[in-house]
């Protein structure tokens, strides 16, 4: 009996070692490429900045205090959150019907349409943004069109609208792909059953499909929100020099100002805010619908 237990313990130890051997390499990569830089960044964010010596070793909260006491930086954060929330809402609004339609499509058309959704991802984000610039800029296609048709000038370049349009177009494919797979898992017969019981299609969707896909849609929306919060190229190229969002600001402090301690603090503040808002949004979903 005792021998059995000992043998069992030994085999369990062996199992543990085997599991460790499988998990080891991945853990090492994560440690080296993610945790270590983050720790380094955390350490930097507590350092002091001097215009002559750049970074001075210290342990001080002044970088964080500077952010939370300066209305300019708080304003940038407010803009960033505003743009991220708005573009996420628009993405869900546009993406939902698209994803649903795709999931319910006959297989032979589905492939083609999926390709259509994925195709923009083949083009680099910068190239796509330049495309938007050509469309939106003064003297661009939209401007020419509205001038000819309605005799009004339309200059959307360097406006928040342009940034939101850019971010939505950038995030939409990811969102549609994620939500499509969520809708795919909902049996068509559930919708049909609801309809047979007297629910018109829209009502059948809200009463039966929506509660079932809500957790998946929430995950897709969170992903979209995180991408928007951290958007860099779009705000820089479509927002122009006076439109400030967190990621470009961070890069500017880091690259142009050489203020590494403050840039590190900004990075942590951006990360923390994103995380906090994501958790908060998740709490808004009723418990019984959570994944």
């Amino acid at each position, binding site marked *: 009996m005792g021998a059995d237990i000992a043998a069992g313990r030994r085999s369990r130890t062996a199992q543990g070692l085997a599991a460790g051997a499988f998990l080891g390499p991945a853990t090492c990569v994560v440690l080296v490429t993610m945790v270590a830089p983050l720790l380094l960044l955390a350490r930097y964010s507590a350092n002091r900045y001097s215009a002559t010596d750049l970074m001075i070793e210290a342990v001080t909260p002044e970088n964080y205090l500077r952010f939370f006491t300066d209305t300019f930086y708080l304003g940038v954060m407010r803009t960033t959150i505003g743009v991220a929330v708005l573009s996420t809402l628009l993405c869900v609004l546009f993406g939902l019907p698209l994803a649903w339609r795709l999931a319910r499509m006959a297989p032979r058309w589905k492939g083609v349409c999926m390709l259509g959704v994925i195709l923009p991802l083949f083009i680099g984000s910068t190239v796509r943004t330049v495309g938007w610039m050509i469309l939106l800029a003064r003297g661009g296609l939209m401007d020419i069109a509205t001038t000819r048709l309605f005799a009004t000038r339309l200059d959307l370049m360097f406006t928040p609208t342009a940034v939101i349009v850019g971010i939505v177009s950038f995030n939409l494919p990811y969102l549609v792909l994620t939500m499509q797979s969520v809708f795919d898992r909902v049996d068509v017969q559930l919708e049909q*059953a609801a309809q*047979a019981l007297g629910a018109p299609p829209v009502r059948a969707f809200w009463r039966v499909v929506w509660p079932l896909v809500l957790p998946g849609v929430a995950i897709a929306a969170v992903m979209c929100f995180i991408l928007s919060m951290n958007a860099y190229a779009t705000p820089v190229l479509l927002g122009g020099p006076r439109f400030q969002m967190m990621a470009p600001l961070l890069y500017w402090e880091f690259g142009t100002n050489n203020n590494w301690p403050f840039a590190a603090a900004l990075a942590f503040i951006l990360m923390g805010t994103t995380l906090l808002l994501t958790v908060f949004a998740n709490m808004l979903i009723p418990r*019984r619908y959570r994944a």
Partner: protein
Amino acid sequence: MSAALQLRDLSKQYGPAVAVDRVSLDVAPGEMVVLLGPSGCGKTTTLRMVTGFVEPSGGDILVDGHSIRMLPPYRREMGIVFQSYALFPHLSVARNVAFGLEMRRQGRAERDARVAEMLRLVRLEGLADRLPRQLSGGQQQRVAIARALAIRPRLLLLDEPLSNLDAALRQEVAREMRILQRDNGLTAVMVTHDQDEAMAMADRLVVMRDGRVQQIGRQEDLYERPATPFVARFIGHSNLLAGSVQDGQVLALGGADVALAGRYAPPAGSSAATLAVRPERIVLAPPGTHPEERVVGRVALSSYLGAAVEHVVHVGTDQRVVVNGASSGPAATARFAAGEAVALCWGAESERVFDAADRVMPRSASNPAPVRSGHDSQTISKVASNAR
């Protein structure tokens, strides 16, 4: 006569492919009609056209004399039990059953009473607050029926309702569903590919193949008087022997001749024919000992199956006949070993001959088949065992 459901030349085409080809059917009030056929025969498409989820290419659907073809599914008032049951996984049993009543904006008290009544009907009173995933397959199926019946549907439509249950449960549930349907006077249409299920549940059956109705009738009609070789094979696994009719009473198979029990008049220009005989209507005897001997073959396989004994007999150059008989009791069949020569014997009422166009070949009236009285299988088996 006023039919609860009428299909008139109902058709469905997908591009050039015809899924359902001019199906016409009348279902009387309180009747259970089963659409039966192999997969791809169009039975499910027919049902879906009645539910409204597939749009017909032609023909019409009438409920109580009014066309419902233009009505969307949510206004057709049909109780549908889906193959997968399609219970709403996020709603309790009671909320599932109440769903249709909520859609009709019924008062809460009335709704609760109806839900309780339905759960009592399917004997699930204690499980009202469970979620569907906490129920067994049989219980889920009963919830699906309760949900479909709660709205007092004009028709109950069942799409392979038993195929997701294990074999042991299937018979019991089938019996219960049949009693429920009978007792409540429900008009029902069921789809299945399982002929035993169909035989057990139906008032009338519709056998379909390649989108067409092969035969409509009661169990006895289909079994005793199949309209086509397909029906003969599909209902009760008839043996089909292909050959040509000669002199109206011999079927030449190639390598062997069957002395037919009846006299037939093949249509002008074609003597090709198919003979259908059921496995349990054939009696085996040593050659030359039985008054109703039709053809002699060679036993290929003899298996003991418990209640029944099955022989597979090679006839002619390349055809096979399956023969079933009781393994014990007064009508026990004689057993023959593989390789033995054996005579296949049957009476006139057990054979059916079809012409090249799969129509029943008429018996020629001028010379009626000789009626032999009382082929007592007991004496036959005695003869058979003596011969050994």
